[in-house]
């Protein structure tokens, strides 16, 4: 038998599934295809990640 918690959970899941209801899905990459009169260009842009550190004695101006 349905109780209040179960109905609430079903409603929330259904709302999220069908509507998104404002939740961010994130975007690891975007592919854009632009077609002009001369050419078709496909550009894939991935979200940049934090730089990997190189172990090195610095020589910046300090």
């Amino acid at each position, binding site marked *: *038998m*349905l*109780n*209040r918690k179960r*109905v*609430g959970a*079903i*409603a*929330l899941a*259904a*709302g*999220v*599934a*069908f*509507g*998104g*209801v404002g939740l*961010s*899905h*994130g*975007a*690891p*990459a*975007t*592919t*854009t*295809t*632009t*077609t*002009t*009169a*001369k*050419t078709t*260009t496909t*550009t*894939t*842009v*991935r*979200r*940049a*990640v*934090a*730089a*990997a*550190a*190189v*172990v*090195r*004695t*610095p*020589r*910046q*101006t*300090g």
Partner: protein
Amino acid sequence: MTSPIRRVARLAGLAVALVLVGIGVRILLPVQRAPTSPERSTSSERLSSPAYTVSTTTPDTARTLVGYSGYAATVKPASIEVRDAPAPGAPVRVVLPDHNENGAPQTFFIKDEQRDASGEVWYRVLLPIRPNGTTGWVRAADVEVSGLPYRLVVYLAQFRLDVFQGPHLLRSIGLGVGTDQTPTPGGEYYIKELLRPPDPNTVYGHYVFGLSGFSNVLVNWPDGGVLGIHGTNDPAHAIARKVSHGCLRMRNEDIEYLAGLLPLGTPVEVET
């Protein structure tokens, strides 16, 4: 008092109403997929497939870069020719290797894009060479493009660095800046490398970001006087003072925060 059957029926009706609202939102509003997550991404994210595709038929001026406030270009071939104009026959301004002098992937900040006569896309990029602010053109096919979530703004007079994600201020960080004899030059730069000194107990502290710009005074410094943002082993005498040879110094906890956040290519605007 309400019977259990009537209560369940009322809740079921509420559930149906929520589903209908969800469908309505889905139809009326586009789903926002902007890259806003501030967390550090994992290596698996780099390999994930594209989240969505945009296909358009457009004029020759069509832009290929959409969705981010800034973009980094990482060199793909063993070396890249940077030209004076967006054309295959334009003079070569400089040839740069795929990794810089410190072993970091050669990365540029993209300032503009344009198509040549054949329709091929070129990017105008900020270069890590003298004089500060030098730009050149690279073929889009020669670089891998990534979207940049963050930007830094430095206010030298206030000894402060602000970290922005889009329009949102994430953190304000206290700084030490160049002395009057070796001032930090204002301008537009980007992060070209992140170094971790073998000895963390030096004037550089725990991490050093190498910038694309150079000191205007120290021209004979090793590696040419590259500007940097780094930590310090002496915070009591490094912050809110003119103490450096041109670099920007901050507390180690602040440079560690930035080291875990910022990608190569992140733009750095230095205001005098």
